[in-house]
């Protein structure tokens, strides 16, 4: 019975993230439009876009290989699995102990690895630009993320997200310098990894400045739908991660019962709304940076993460 219950909660968790992810992106776009005094697209637009793309035919480049066709599914799966491992409305779900935060970072790395390969597969220069820039950014972003993860793990004494979330709810936390550093580092990484301004422009129409878009320029139809959905999920993943660690309130634990789950879901959606709104405000107020400023920007995140870890090595109370 408990196992069935576990499976149901886990499945619910997975379905929830997939269902909510396009909505979060839609919400961010909507808030951005409102900030520019536009009416903006409907919140449901990302869902419609996905549906529309799924109904379209796929145009494959002649020089593309099986890898090109497999990557959308691989990327989506890796990100979905990673997103499903992050506690959203309930902690301690069934699979959460099969991989910890380090594995989540690595799963995102897997998704990126294959997407970058897909960018190179067709053999166009834009795909190469995208892949090359993406890997350059990732080569700093990933260590920065890992250092942030280290800091959290050292604080909570665990690399398991559920344990971290539980720890953050306890009285031992308090205001710590290291936590503040981690928050900033994670925010920077989240912005970079989700191809948002100022690192990339999700709405750009300039082939030469794109990062993420350049890699997927060749994709169409259902493949593009999978890639877009993966991008939505990734944004949600980072929002959930930040919410889980820094706003752990209201999260249910497995076995708490339906009411707690309900509260958990409502709290989760509220947290996402806050995250999405903040992202939109931030993006509207800043220009995209030069490509070679990005490593400096992320290098700051890496340093912050490292500093956080260092502080904890020196004293558990910092």
């Amino acid at each position, binding site marked *: 019975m408990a196992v069935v219950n576990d499976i149901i909660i886990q499945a619910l968790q997975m379905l929830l993230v997939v269902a909510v992810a396009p909505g979060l992106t839609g919400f961010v776009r909507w808030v951005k439009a409102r900030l520019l005094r536009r009416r903006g697209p409907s919140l449901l637009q990302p869902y419609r876009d996905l549906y529309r793309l799924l109904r379209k035919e796929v145009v494959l480049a002649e020089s593309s290989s099986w890898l090109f066709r497999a990557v959308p599914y691989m990327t989506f799966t890796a990100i979905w699995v990673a997103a499903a491992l992050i506690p959203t409305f309930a902690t301690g779900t069934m699979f959460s102990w*099969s991989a910890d935060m380090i*594995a989540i970072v690595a799963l995102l790395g897997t998704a990126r690895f294959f997407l*970058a390969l897909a960018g190179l597969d067709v053999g166009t220069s834009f795909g190469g630009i995208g892949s090359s820039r993406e890997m350059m950014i990732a080569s700093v972003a990933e260590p920065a993320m890992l250092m942030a993860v280290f800091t959290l793990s050292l604080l909570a004494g665990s690399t398991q997200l559920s344990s971290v979330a539980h720890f953050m709810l306890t009285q031992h936390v308090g205001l710590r310098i290291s936590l503040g550093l981690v928050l900033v580092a994670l925010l920077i990484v989240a912005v970079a990894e989700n191809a948002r301004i100022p690192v990339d422009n999700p709405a750009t129409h300039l082939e030469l400045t794109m990062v993420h878009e350049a890699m997927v320029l060749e994709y169409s139809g259902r493949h593009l739908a999978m890639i877009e959905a993966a991008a939505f999920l990734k944004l949600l993943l980072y929002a959930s991660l930040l919410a889980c660690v820094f706003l752990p309130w209201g999260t249910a634990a497995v076995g708490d019962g339906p009411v707690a789950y309900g509260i958990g879901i409502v709290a989760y959606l509220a947290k996402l709304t806050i995250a999405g709104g903040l992202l939109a405000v931030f993006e509207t107020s800043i220009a995209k940076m030069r490509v070679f400023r990005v490593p400096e920007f992320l290098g700051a995140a890496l340093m912050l993460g490292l500093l956080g870890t260092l502080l904890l090595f020196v004293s558990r109370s910092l």
Partner: protein
Amino acid sequence: MALTLILACIAALFLLAPVAITIRAGAVARPVVYGLSATACSILLIAAAPTLLGGDTLVQILPLGIPWIGAHLRLDALAAFFLVVVNLGGAIASLYAIGYGRHEAAPERVLPFIPAFLAAMNLVVIADDAFVFLFAWELMSLTSWALVMTDHRDGGSRHAGYVYLVMASFGTLCLLLAFGLLAGSHGGYSFTTMRLSTLATGLQPVLLLLVLLGAGSKAGIVPLHVWLPLAHPAAPSHVSALMSGVMTKVAVYGLIRIVFDLAGPTAWWWSIVVLVVGAITAVLGVLYALMQHDLKRLLAYHTVENIGIIYIGLGLALAFQANQMAFGAALALTAALFHVLNHSLFKSLLFLGTGAVLTATGHRDMERLGGLIHRMPVTALTFLIGCAAISALPPLNGFVSEWLTFQAILLSPALPQWGLKFLVPAVGASLALSAALAAACFVKAFGVTFLGRPRSPEAAVAREVDVFSTGTMIGLAVLCLLAGVLPGLIVDALSHAVAELAGGTRLPPQSTLPWLSLIPVSAARSSYNGLLLLIFIVCTASLIAVAVHRFASRAVRRAAAWDCGFPDASPATQYTAGSFAQPIRRVFGRLAFRASERVEMPEPGRLEAARLHVKVHDLIWQWLFVPIAKAVNVASIRLNRLQFLTIRSYLGLVFAVLVILLAGLALWQ
């Protein structure tokens, strides 16, 4: 019994060398020699397994070598583990070579040396006295040097061979001196005596320096790595696989054997040295690798990076051990040994894949490859798995050993020394950095070689390679996957070797855990389950694929790649390896290589060629080896003068030396 069998096999391998010389008729010799080598390696592998899995330590003394000492041989769990690594690599490389060797231009320059090389590596591992160890070590160097010189007409190969020979001799000399220190004034050259004697504190730094110079130079730690990217690629590909995948591991074995086993208790600052060396090696190795566009050199530099990762694990183990934190030491050692196994698997796989590409196209310069995934599907798939594994992507094996290393790092705030408190986070950051850069490097390696469009006519007509080659590559790829999804089994298999080194402490048994999870410390702290992750990923992916294919449009149309409406079939319009790495070179290379770019752009309307000049400096070569070479040169010219002195001057010199020696002796007393 097992040790006798092992010795017999080693002897058989040694005997195979002269046999190979006698049956020079190529067509027969190749399958015979490689087939017998593979068989011998397999037997060695099986013979070593019981000891690895907890069997008894076996000892044997043969009446060989120096008459009054004999040859001491010993098979403990650590040696057994390295025997497994050596012979797994050896067997697979030999099998591969049955097919690959067909394209050898001069088989007589390869065939005799391979079995001898394999035998020498085996002998290093089971040696139990300094004489056998050094003899085998030197033999290993010489046979591999001969293999590096296979293509001796090529100037590059000759240069590589020269540098390798110098570095190898230097390394052996250092090891000889190290053993001299360990043996002490009693002169007990068997390892058993060395274990019992302790080293004077004052000599500890000297010993560490000598071991790092001796074993480290063979493993390729920075700054002693310079020979490695020259020598490994120069040899035939299966030999490259052996040198990179296996021989560097024997070098790691040498370090472990001396530092953890023979040297006795070590001071905590040893760990600092090893950690710093490891971190620098890891980051610089991968940065160097990123700058390469010769596939084999890229892989060779990557070996440098992985040695760095292993050293980080060993350094952590030393730190824990010096502070009596046996559990941490066990975890760090497990991580390091796991990475030894992993690296031997995926690096062999990648070198064999490169060999296949070389066979099929004649190129190992990535700028002349491309699009091979269409023409060499098996090689491409297995190479991709190797790339994913070496980039530490879950659920493959590379991730597990890095994960274990990270777990060990997370245990280290408890270390009392301030130096370590500051150093370990930085080491963790460099490990993370090198992992991320490795991913970039292998996106480049796979993407430029196998994806896109062919950049040369040879790449456009490449054909898949023979069954032996593809078969061995598939085998290695499967092993990479298995080691990734069943890490618990491997951790358990390593536990005896780890326990030997970490004073009896080992990780809790893993294979009894539900779902074959990996829980090194405690479930609340960290757990990883590669199997479940794999099942999870496979199920989800198939579910999505089925759902999408069921509900979405299934129409597929092939069309030209989107070219902005300007059709240009030239492969020059795709990214090159150099271009791919340029942003990273720009970010990290200024510091690491003093890389600079200068563009000469003619004024608009002028028809002259625009030019790009890129300067990348190998600072270590420039600042360390060039001055040393110069100094040696100058010194030898000076010494040369001594040949032309008068009798009186000679007598005067002898007298002066005598006086100095006597004075020194007097002061010493």
